């Protein structure tokens, strides 16, 4: 508790207590537990601190202290529920949490897999099992934690979640340096947590008492690590956890798109590490559009909002298989003013008229997407998937619809061109306008066009291909400068120049495709593929960045080029790594090199270099917390 005093913000206003139940205010640990049970809707989840109402064992005490902050944040919940007067105050994501395994949108087989694993561990937990760690991976919003919650509740097990305490701010710590507060990084705390789980097996010992429920530990937010050393510590920690865990432990790891600019390297490394250490891995795939649609229409029914099925379909597609985002979008979409008015009068006549009025209301926006998609183009602007808005623009560019020839219009122009440069007027707004309405960016547009344009050029037209390709390469060249500035420091000057180069490149690419494709194929249905080239480029960039980071760690004292890194350093690391079970090949290599460079007799200087190296590393660590 001492920690909290330093915080300025944390204050409770007295008048607010009126709104909440008195029992939850008392500080006995029994009612903590009770309160916690109530908050999570009567399901059997509860905090790790639960054990504190048992006769305290040595480990339990330590554990309770560790998780005391978690109890405190749970304590907040009763008050919020007391405040909640009307029903419509929750996020739909919370309101429509799945409550039974049947409601989970995750694939049945995966659910079954997790369920079996948990059952085996729970029923036969006394017997000897090699490992007690389950690793669930998957993209954001596919229902990883929902699945674990539901299954645990279904099997009547308690779910204890590891939750990090609120830390003190660094400058507050410096300010109160004499008051005996200790300053710990998240990683320290996580290490301590793991150590305690392994060493004392305290949860199981306190379990031995009576008819306590079985317990599952859930670890959702792994500490963020920054840099090699901290990551190494985390890895060590997780290995230890996997080997020594006594209770079924579920670790959730969120998977990222490769295209993201977030460092993803750690993800793959962590997963493979945990698997090697013996964790059982279940990968959740992204949800299908149909399963999302089912849930969305169910929610619509519950909320008595009648949405056209096209709308639901759009939201489901735009969410890229992310249930949570789909529900959020749905909730936001349902805020439309006339939706609210009509939802109270629910009869089928109104629904039809509303669909009409909706499309009328939105038509100024829809109009830009073209006439044929009038009723399905309502709101692309709410999904997570940016490419969906792009698709419609791309479709227009690629299909390249033009007015039928009429000579009169052409006569009026002052300058007549050669026949091969003449084109009929476009059947759309200016390409730049279409693009800006679709929230398109130059780079992806160019790449998408490049990937897909060949499908839309008629078979024999090699001249067209030649033209289109040359324009696309020009656009690529124009974009190159902005790519450079992107990777380097962002200066305002660079931003300024991008304001021209980006739109120019986009225009050249689009207009080039429009102009070059002289005889577009008659409109046939084509799936638009995502650009493979782009993905390759992205991953190449990503690997380069990773190497640069490693070079930074490696390079104090030595300077290496990128190719040296790839040809010399990486293989040696790998080679060393295959000889040692630990993952400190890096340090070994450093030792090798330092001893290589310095005559063996001169032990002293070797040590100093080693120690400066360590110091450097430790410096890094301080930043990492």
């Amino acid at each position, binding site marked *: 508790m001492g920690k909290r005093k330093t915080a300025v*913000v944390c204050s409770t206003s007295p008048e607010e207590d009126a709104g909440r139940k008195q029992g939850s205010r008392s500080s006995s640990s029994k009612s903590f537990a009770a309160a916690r049970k109530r908050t999570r809707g009567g399901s059997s989840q509860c905090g790790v601190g639960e054990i504190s109402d048992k006769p305290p064992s040595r480990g339990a005490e330590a554990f309770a202290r560790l998780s005391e902050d978690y109890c*405190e944040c749970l304590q907040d919940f009763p008050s919020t529920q007391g405040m909640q007067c009307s029903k419509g105050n929750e*996020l739909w994501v919370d309101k429509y949490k799945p409550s039974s395994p049947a409601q989970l949108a995750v694939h049945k087989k995966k659910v079954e897999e997790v369920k079996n694993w948990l059952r085996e561990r729970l029923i036969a937990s006394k017997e000897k099992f090699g490992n007690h760690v389950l690793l669930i991976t998957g993209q954001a919003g596919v229902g990883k934690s929902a699945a674990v919650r539901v299954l645990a509740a279904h099997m009547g097990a308690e779910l204890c979640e590891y939750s990090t305490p609120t830390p003190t701010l660094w400058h507050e710590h410096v300010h109160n340096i004499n008051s005996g507060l200790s300053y710990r990084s998240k990683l320290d705390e996580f290490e301590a947590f793991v150590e305690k789980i392994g060493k004392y097996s305290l949860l199981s010992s306190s379990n031995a008492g009576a008819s306590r429920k079985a317990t599952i530990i859930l670890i959702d937010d792994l500490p963020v690590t920054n840099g090699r050393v901290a990551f190494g510590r985390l890895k060590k920690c997780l290995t230890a956890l996997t080997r020594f865990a006594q209770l079924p432990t579920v670790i959730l790891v969120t998977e*990222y798109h490769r295209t993201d600019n977030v460092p993803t390297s750690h993800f793959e490394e962590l997963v493979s590490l945990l698997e090697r250490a013996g964790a059982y891995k279940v990968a959740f795939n992204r949800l299908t559009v149909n399963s999302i649609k089912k849930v969305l229409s169910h929610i619509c029914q519950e909320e008595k909002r009648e949405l056209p099925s096209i709308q639901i379909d759009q939201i489901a597609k735009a969410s890229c298989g992310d249930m949570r985002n789909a529900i959020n979008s749905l909730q936001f979409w349902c*805020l439309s003013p006339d939706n609210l008015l009509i939802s109270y009068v629910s009869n089928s006549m109104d629904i039809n008229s509303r669909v009409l009025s909706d499309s009328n209301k939105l038509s100024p926006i829809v109009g830009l997407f073209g006439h044929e998609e009038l009723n399905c183009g309502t709101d692309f602007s709410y999904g997570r998937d940016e490419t969906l808005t792009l698709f419609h623009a791309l479709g227009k560019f690629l299909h390249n619809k033009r007015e039928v020839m009429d000579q009169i219009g052409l006569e009026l122009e002052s300058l007549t061109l*050669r026949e091969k440069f003449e084109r009929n007027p476009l059947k759309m707004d200016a390409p730049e306008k279409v693009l800006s309405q679709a929230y398109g960016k130059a780079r992806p547009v160019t790449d998408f066009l490049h990937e897909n344009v060949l499908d839309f050029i008629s078979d024999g037209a090699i001249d067209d291909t030649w033209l289109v390709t040359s324009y696309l390469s020009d656009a690529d060249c*124009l974009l190159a400068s902005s790519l450079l500035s992107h990777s380097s420091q962002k200066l305002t000057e660079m931003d300024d120049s991008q304001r021209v180069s980006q*739109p*120019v490149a986009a225009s050249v690419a689009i207009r080039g495709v429009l102009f070059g494709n002289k005889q577009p194929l008659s409109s046939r249905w084509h799936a638009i593929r995502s650009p493979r080239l782009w993905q390759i480029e992205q991953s190449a960039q990503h690997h380069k960045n990773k190497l640069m980071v490693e070079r930074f760690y490696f390079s104090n004292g030595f300077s290496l080029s990128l190719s040296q890194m790839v040809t010399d350093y990486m293989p040696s690391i790998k080679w060393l790594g295959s000889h040692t079970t630990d993952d400190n090949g890096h340090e070994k290599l450093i030792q090798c090199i330092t001893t290589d460079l310095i005559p063996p007799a001169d032990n002293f200087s070797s040590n100093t270099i080693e120690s400066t190296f360590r110091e450097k590393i430790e410096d890094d660590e301080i930043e990492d917390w």
Partner: protein
Amino acid sequence: MASSSAPPPSTPPPSSLSASSYYEVPWVEKYRPTKVADVVGNSDAVSRLQVIAREGNMPNIILSGPPGTGKTTSILALAHELLGPHCKEAVLELNASDDRGIDVVRNKIKMFAQKKVTLPPGRHKIIILDEADSMTSAAQQALRRTMEIYSNTTRFALACNTSSKIIEPIQSRCALVRFSRLSDQEILERLLTVVETEKVPYVPGGLEAIIFTADGDMRQALNNLQATFSGFHFVNEENVFKVCDQPHPLHVKNMIRNVLEGKFDDACSGLKQLYDLGYSPTDIITTLFRVVKNYDMAEYLKLEFLKETGFAHMRVCDGVGSLLQLSGLLAKLALVRETAKAP
């Protein structure tokens, strides 16, 4: 509190007249809408935000879009409308200028989320993270669980320029609302009301020029308007381009027309004039690009002109900003026209 924390726009040095009489508030702040309904443009998104302002229960949202389109304004207005007198205690606003490292996210935001404030039903505490794309991904990671655990009492509103810089778990927890550039008409309407209340003498061409220079950015439009007014006390085309220090688009337009009509000499002398006025090659090319984009010409010519302009811009950015490059650009444009012209 809200308006004062926004970054101060670049105000012009006040003219001697106004400086002696009173301190002028930047018009961007003075005319910042305080109600969601008054936010200009993006009608679909804004109408939904209006519903939130009326009904409460704000979901977590991310507003993304180019600068000057009203993202921050709508969030602030929304917070004010939702919370009214509680605004001081129930809103936490952090932008890029505040310390927003991982420890602040862990401590300050979590503490705020745990804080208890009595609010009317359907209202929640709001945490506004402006310019959220400048947060490190580690800080965003730390935000992830907080967002979920406290969703009963605290909601988040994030504003950013590019939504892809927000990590996926955060995107997943929010409804994404996209803002696009304002249309010229929308900017014009707003300018007219400002001009009226400030009693600015103007000619329509002046406002048009302001809209041209603003390029869909309301903040810039208002700043330019104020700058012109305090500099010259009269808004016409000439003054606007003097203040904004951009080559006059009409001049550039003439240049292009000369090229298209085959009068290369006239085009070159026009360029020389512009160059001698002291405009930097980048400025000239930027204006040239905008003019070409909107110039009505044959499709092939437009495509080629844009391409050549792009390449010239690239060379200028590389450091070759000489008059020769600009003349070369004109020559290339003329060449394109020659090859394309029917014999």
